[in-house]
């Protein structure tokens, strides 16, 4: 039987968002609270998302050195 690793609940994606599994309340820079609504949520780490605190894929259009 192949060994499989248990999944992580919080996962930092290289150059991309932080994945959060499960129900959480995320407080943003302005102190506003956002409740997760899906089984896995991607939290913006590059600071450029137009849907903050959630990732919208914008990190992919940034030069590599500006990515998380």
């Amino acid at each position, binding site marked *: 039987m192949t060994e499989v690793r248990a*999944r992580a609940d919080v996962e930092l994606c290289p150059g991309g968002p932080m994945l959060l599994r499960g129900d959480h309340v995320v407080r943003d820079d302005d102190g506003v609270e956002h409740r997760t609504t899906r089984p896995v949520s991607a939290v913006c780490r590059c600071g450029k998302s137009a849907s903050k605190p959630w990732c919208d894929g914008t990190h992919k259009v940034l030069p*590599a050195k500006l990515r998380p």
Partner: protein
Amino acid sequence: MTSLPKPRGALGVAVLSALADVPEREVPRLDLAPESADDAALTLWVLHELAYGGFVEVDDRADGEPELMRVRRRLEDDLERQLRDRWPGVPEGVDLGTGFFDWLADQDGPSLARFVQAEATHEQVLDLLRVRSVYHLKEADPTTWVIPRLPVSAKAPLVELQYDEYGVGDPARLHSHLFARGMEASGLRPEPGVYVDDAPVEVLEQNNALSMFGLRRHLRGAAVGHLAAFEATSSLPSRRMAQGLQRLGLPAEIVGYYTEHVEADAVHEQVALRDVCVRLVAEEPGLEPDVWFGAWACLDLENRTARRLLSGWGVAA
């Protein structure tokens, strides 16, 4: 339930007429070659649809009928061969796990989303929604076929992704249902398959390739590669689509379908690549070329669709 579309050539006529007689009459041997790419694509779309929702005029037992399976297989083999002939091959020196997103970003192609964002007319957007409905009304279903064919390490994350596609258990949030509501609110018909007659061959081939990748076990690598490319080319284009639809004053339901995909697919692209594709390849390294093949096919088929629609609207692609 879906009604049969119009055949586009002699093979389609023969297959559709045989379907009407199942199960009373045995399907005769059908050695006819497709008359055209349109004939091949429409016929294969109909044969695949038997494995999904079926047709109101056709007995459910038509799915799996041996002669129809033989025709389907022949058409799938032709489609796979055409795709493999166009495929430039595995990109050199690109690591799947760390280089995939940058590789995708380097691939050029016309963008329907950019056109919708800035220029499209209301009528052009409705044209686009009609042909997109061929896929979006059964969104995620073709990928579900792949689940039992994956090792556990890739299977669990694919189910996690699909669970979100299927509305986290809430039928009202199912992505295909959100699209149906958006269609209806936009004055279009929300039933699956009603706009297949309007779909150019490129759109049918796009759908057929996705079904084939899901239904044929030897193409499971291509199925997950296609998924990763599809999800990773969705968030930013979905934002542009939403902005274009708002610019034109389309209803909140259809705008909402696209805004849902901005955040959902920013998650899905990570899960599809890192948890599904990379783990599958770790366990079955021989499948890596097909993961790249599937990803390339996703882009190639979308580029062909975009060029066809844009040139139909008189826009240089």
